[in-house]
């Protein structure tokens, strides 16, 4: 199986603030890759560099065999992204947001969107401004999945979702991955990584450490957080 994500020596600085330093990472096709780490460790910076939101200083990122800078549009056509905070245009209805996300891609995703809304119990008649945090997250999941991308990039996706929805979410990921997709999952929840991920890495202070197995225990996991707190 080929690599869907290949990051080599990625470095991103924010002036005085730390970004990420010399991060190298590969994610294989069909993987559910757990991306762990404390707040401010650099997970979102890495993800946002992959998505082209940030201009990185050094290194290279290849996604689906394409250069993340030169081939950004082609890459994003095959990526389903869910940010850690789900924000949409307040005045739009849920159905309008979902249709808009499909229209911009030039796709008719009504069938898939309908299935996803049913599975996640999304009320498409409501306006975005009327939704709770969790319900906005569900809309974000639909927007990320409806075009059946080859790669999912989820940044802390389960925050705000109730346990039933969390289960439905992971069932959906597993189904898409079984059909050939790949998933990068940034999370703080170790149990999600233990249960669903095939490989994992942990970030701390802008540097990445690959884990031999995603099945790490709580003590080992929390050690990364404690060390990080002490250093802070």
């Amino acid at each position, binding site marked *: 199986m080929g690599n869907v994500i290949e990051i080599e020596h990625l470095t991103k600085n924010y002036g005085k603030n730390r970004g990420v330093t010399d991060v190298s990472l590969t994610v294989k096709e069909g993987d559910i890759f757990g991306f762990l780490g404390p707040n401010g460790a650099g997970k979102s910076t890495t993800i946002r560099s992959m998505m082209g*939101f940030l201009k990185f200083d050094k290194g290279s990122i290849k996604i689906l065999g394409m250069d993340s800078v030169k081939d950004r549009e082609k890459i994003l*056509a095959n*990526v389903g*992204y869910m*940010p850690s905070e789900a*924000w949409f245009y307040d005045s739009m209805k849920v159905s309008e947001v979902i249709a808009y996300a499909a229209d911009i891609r030039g796709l008719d995703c009504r069938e898939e969107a309908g299935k996803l809304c049913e599975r996640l119990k999304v009320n498409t008649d409501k306006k975005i401004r009327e939704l709770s945090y969790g319900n906005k997250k569900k809309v974000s999941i639909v927007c990320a999945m409806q075009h059946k991308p080859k790669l999912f990039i989820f940044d802390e996706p389960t925050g705000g979702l109730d346990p039933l929805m969390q289960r439905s979410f992971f069932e959906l990921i597993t189904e898409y991955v079984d059909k050939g997709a790949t998933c990068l999952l940034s999370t703080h929840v170790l149990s999600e990584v233990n249960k669903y991920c095939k490989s994992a890495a942990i970030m701390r202070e802008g540097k990445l450490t690959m884990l031999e197995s995603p099945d790490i225990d709580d003590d080992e996991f929390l050690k990364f957080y404690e060390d990080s707190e002490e250093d802070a």
Partner: protein
Amino acid sequence: MKKIFLKELKMNLKTLLIWSLSVGGMGLACILLYSSMEGEMKDMADAFSHMGSFSDAFGMSTLSIATLKGYFATEVGAVHGLGGSMFAALIGAGMLSKEEELHTGEFLYSFPVSRKKIVAAKALCIFAMLIMFTLICAGLYASGFAALGEDLPVKEFMKYMGMQFLLDTEIAGICFAISSLSSKTKTGLALGTALMCYAYDIIGRVVPDVKDYLFIGPFSYSNASDIFSGADTEIKGIVFGTALTVLLVVFSFVYYDKRDLAS
């Protein structure tokens, strides 16, 4: 790109209607008030035309406010000039920065559309809104002339509305560039820019030393009194304004494409 353009237009429709009906409505009300003030206007016109620099600054030395044409140029000219430039400043200032300020950027920029195309769609939306704003206001002013049974000085009126559109485009261009620099909408700076340009024009018409540099400001070529009195339009003002607008829009494209986006 078309979808983004249409979405922007739809989302800004309410703002467009509020501003165009407010500015156009105020202008229309001013025109309709003319008939009830016509009698008193003759004395006022005499007084206003002999106030030295003040009369020059507001165009009352070249046009009589006792005529509807002169009244339109001095009164409605100020209302439309200020209102239109403030509207242009507001839509220009928020168009790019609102995506980061309202945290919708990560949704929009995760689509397979380049930043340049998104900036182009947003710039086109501003352009379209300014056209609609100008047309709505022009329609309201023309209906005011019709309601009073007065002939509309078509040539001057068309030239005036065209120059006002150019003025609004320049102000929007300046504020669009400001918007590309920041992740927060600089409403105060945008409105300040429009008001400063207006103030610069007034000062330039009063202070002799500044007169030679009046063309730098966008109100120089769009001055209603100059246009309705048949004075020659300063071509260098139009050239300077157009060049500045193009330069700032190009800058917005280049800079926005290269910078980090806030989450």
